């Protein structure tokens, strides 16, 4: 029982980790609090749903949804934030602008697609499961973990080992100095928007698969959870976001299994509050460090 809970928690947690990764990338590199991020999560899930409804296999629906969610992120970032960044508006301005935009986008989405919970077509995933000793892990769960691991490794090696990744980290610290090095910071920002939107979208597909429930407002609760996770992980800290995502997934599963599923959604925030009492920089953050 305990082992199975932990496995289930790690599966959900790996999707949380992916979601948090995109959020911390967006926050850390672009330096704005962008609440539209949860919208890409919902967009990704719906696009995969549409693609699957049209007969696409998950191997096509998932990347397609992620890429389109990434493009939506580029467009929204451009429309909402270019001007604020250029005038170096205070963070509260980007918070309010993106909050307003998000409310609008969720409403538009509900009006367009209906607000009822939708499900992926039966048979999208193989119903099989593997036995790991006494435990069960389904094909869907393997897909979720596999995708999350692959995308996280991809992002980590992009950030650590490529010229673009280096420029992203430089931009996170100091955009003027990056320009002086010859970095086209606007172009790098577009790439960061795309990547984070795609990660958010992919996470939306994975969570949609795990719980088999998709609704326009699914991104809202997830955004809050995402912020809790990246603060736990230490803002802008990629490894921290991954670890905190897994941790919250496992704690949620344990809470649902041993306490009550009523408290499941709250456990991440409880952990956050307790952590911030003891370590204001988060579980994995360095004191004083703010960005990746």
């Amino acid at each position, binding site marked *: 029982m305990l082992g199975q809970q932990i496995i289930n928690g790690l599966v959900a947690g790996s999707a949380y980790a992916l979601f948090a990764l995109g959020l911390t990338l967006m926050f850390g590199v672009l330096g704005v609090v962008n609440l539209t991020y949860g919208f890409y999560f919902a967009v990704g899930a719906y696009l995969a749903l549409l693609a699957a409804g049209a007969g696409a296999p998950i191997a096509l629906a998932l990347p397609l949804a992620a890429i389109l969610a990434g493009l939506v992120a580029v467009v929204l970032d451009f429309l909402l934030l270019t001007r604020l960044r250029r005038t170096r508006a205070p963070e509260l301005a980007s918070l309010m602008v993106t909050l307003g935009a998000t409310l609008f986008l969720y409403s538009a989405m509900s009006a367009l697609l209906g607000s009822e919970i939708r499900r992926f077509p039966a048979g999208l995933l193989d119903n099989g499961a593997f036995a790991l000793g006494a435990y069960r892990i389904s094909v869907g769960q393997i897909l979720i973990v596999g995708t999350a691991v692959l995308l996280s490794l991809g992002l980590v090696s992009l950030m650590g080992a490529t*010229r673009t990744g*280096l*420029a992203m*980290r*430089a931009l*996170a*610290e*100091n955009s*003027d*100095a*990056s*320009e*002086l*090095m*010859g*970095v*086209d*910071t606007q172009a790098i920002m577009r790439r960061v928007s795309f990547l984070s939107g795609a990660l958010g979208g992919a996470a939306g597909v994975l969570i949609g698969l795990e719980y088999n429930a998709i609704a326009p407002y699914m991104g809202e609760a997830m955004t809050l959870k995402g912020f809790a996770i990246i603060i736990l992980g230490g803002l802008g800290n990629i490894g921290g976001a991954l670890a905190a995502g897994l941790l919250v997934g496992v704690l949620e599963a344990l809470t649902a299994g041993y306490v009550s599923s009523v408290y499941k959604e709250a456990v991440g925030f409880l952990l956050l509050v307790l952590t911030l009492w003891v370590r204001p920089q988060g579980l994995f953050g360095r004191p004083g*460090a703010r*960005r*990746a």
Partner: protein
Amino acid sequence: MSMNGALLEVRGLELGYGRSTVVEGLDLSVPEGAIVCLIGANGAGKTTVLRGLSGLIRARRGAVLFERTDLANKPAHRIARAGIAHAPEGRQIFGEMTVSENLAMGAYLSPSKAETARRREGALARFPRLAERMRQRAGLLSGGEQQMLAIARALMADPKLLLLDEPSMGLAPLFVDEIFRAIAALKAEGRTILLVEQNAHAALELADYAYVLETGKVSIEGPGRELLARPEIADAYLGG
């Protein structure tokens, strides 16, 4: 100094922030291979001039001719590509990245890995202290080491023109000497440099030519050693 075919020719440059105009009608030229120095009191607009030249702020008026091409109002990354490297005031190194990564950022536009490696060797030969700290987070370096890194990072671009904004600011005398020795060495190698300095004495001794900036305008100009001998310069900028 009217010098035809200088590497950098600034004509009638106007710069400012918001509604305030900080620099007006600035003419300045930097011939190839020369060290030109810009001195002036706090707030005179020296940093603003360098920020205008490297594209960090927009030129409101005037021309910035670099190799006869007007770079005014080009974005900073395009100006970097044209061959101007700016080691800005306050160093602005990437403190969360390693020394090695900072140097890699300096060579962001380098055409090849081999070329980057060659430049890195040159930079480390110039500042051997950095060689021992390549894997260290740059934010943990001492102020003097950070300044060396800022200069080394700018040199990693192998620029045609190097802009240095107060490289000796806030450093202990030992480090100040080391930085000025490095600038003298760059001069001996034929690098072209536009240097802004508070330490007017040391700067004017090195400078082929110098401009004194007073509230956004050039008040005095001439060869460095000539300015050193002028009583009004001695009074205002050399501590009497």
